[in-house]
């Protein structure tokens, strides 16, 4: 009997492929984000609205992650945006390997500058899986409660931006926006917070402005 030292990250294989994805995307000038939230907080709606606002500025492609069906990809395609569905079966998150297989499709579209990856609705596991994105974006909605950041700190800590969606429903809930922001910033003081409503349109221009300028900054950094 002997002790064998391993000292290896449990997700080191995923991280290795994620690194490759990042390298591929950067080399082709694609800025990528990974959107994570619980089911039903409005990720797909936000992507539909985002597509309308940024597609003239940045050519966009979308990867949709769900356990079953390609309903979400179908929704995105209706806006004339190329979208590819990954169905994960029993897995509750996307991993770098699945995204790796779809990247050739992204590059075939030609001239894509922004890749939005919509993760499977789940706030736990997706926080740990690097897909090779430049930025994780957490989404929560006002119907979920303002204590969400404290309950799922790993996600809020790993994200650069937070979208608080469905603000049009604020009058019907006891959600406290001030407290939600405070909770999120307590976990991650560098988080950029956006308040949006996909039905009324509020806050989406600010979010898209941030997205376009982040992509621009990344492109400039690459050019140096």
């Amino acid at each position, binding site marked *: 009997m*002997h002790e*064998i030292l*391993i000292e*290896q990250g*449990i997700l080191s*294989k995923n991280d290795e492929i994620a690194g490759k994805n990042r390298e591929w995307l950067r080399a082709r000038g694609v800025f990528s984000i990974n959107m994570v939230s619980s089911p039903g907080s409005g990720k797909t709606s936000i992507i539909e609205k985002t597509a309308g606002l940024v597609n003239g500025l940045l050519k966009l492609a979308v990867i949709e992650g769900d356990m079953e069906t390609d309903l979400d990809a179908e929704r995105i395609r209706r806006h004339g945006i190329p979208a590819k569905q990954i169905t994960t079966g029993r897995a509750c998150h996307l991993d770098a390997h699945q995204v790796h297989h779809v990247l050739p499709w992204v590059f075939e579209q030609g001239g894509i500058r922004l890749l939005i990856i919509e993760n499977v609705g789940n706030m736990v*596991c997706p926080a*740990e899986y690097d897909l090779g994105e430049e930025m994780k974006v957490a989404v929560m909605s006002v119907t979920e409660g303002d204590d969400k950041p404290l309950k*799922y700190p790993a996600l809020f800590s790993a994200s650069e931006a937070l979208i608080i969606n469905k603000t049009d429903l604020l009058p019907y809930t006891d959600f406290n926006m001030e407290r939600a922001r405070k909770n999120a910033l307590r976990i991650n*003081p560098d988080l950029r917070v956006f308040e949006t409503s996909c039905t009324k349109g509020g806050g989406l221009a600010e979010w898209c402005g941030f997205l376009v300028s982040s992509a621009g900054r990344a492109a400039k950094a690459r050019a140096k």
Partner: protein
Amino acid sequence: MSITRSMMEIVREEMDRHGVKSLKRLKVRIGELTAVEPEALRFCFEAYVKGTPLEGAVLEIEDVPLMGWCAQCSAEFRMEYFLRACPECEGASVTKTTGHELDIVSMEAE
């Protein structure tokens, strides 16, 4: 479960590499700020090894607390409730030192 699968893939590779057949103990390190719940990992591990030659192996989990370090006064402290200011000098430039670990440390096998 897929975290357990990734973990066991590495373990099997290491076992093959070292030419060992039976696993007695596996040590892992899990940070407080990861999305991995130690008890859930233990449950998945037991389910994974059940009915395989690895059944009976012990999973030893080292919980790593979320710790912070203050750039102003060099104090190191436990980041209770994700506090961002230094409890010694109240300085705000605090960096996380531990809490993100998700590592396999070692295994006992023969």
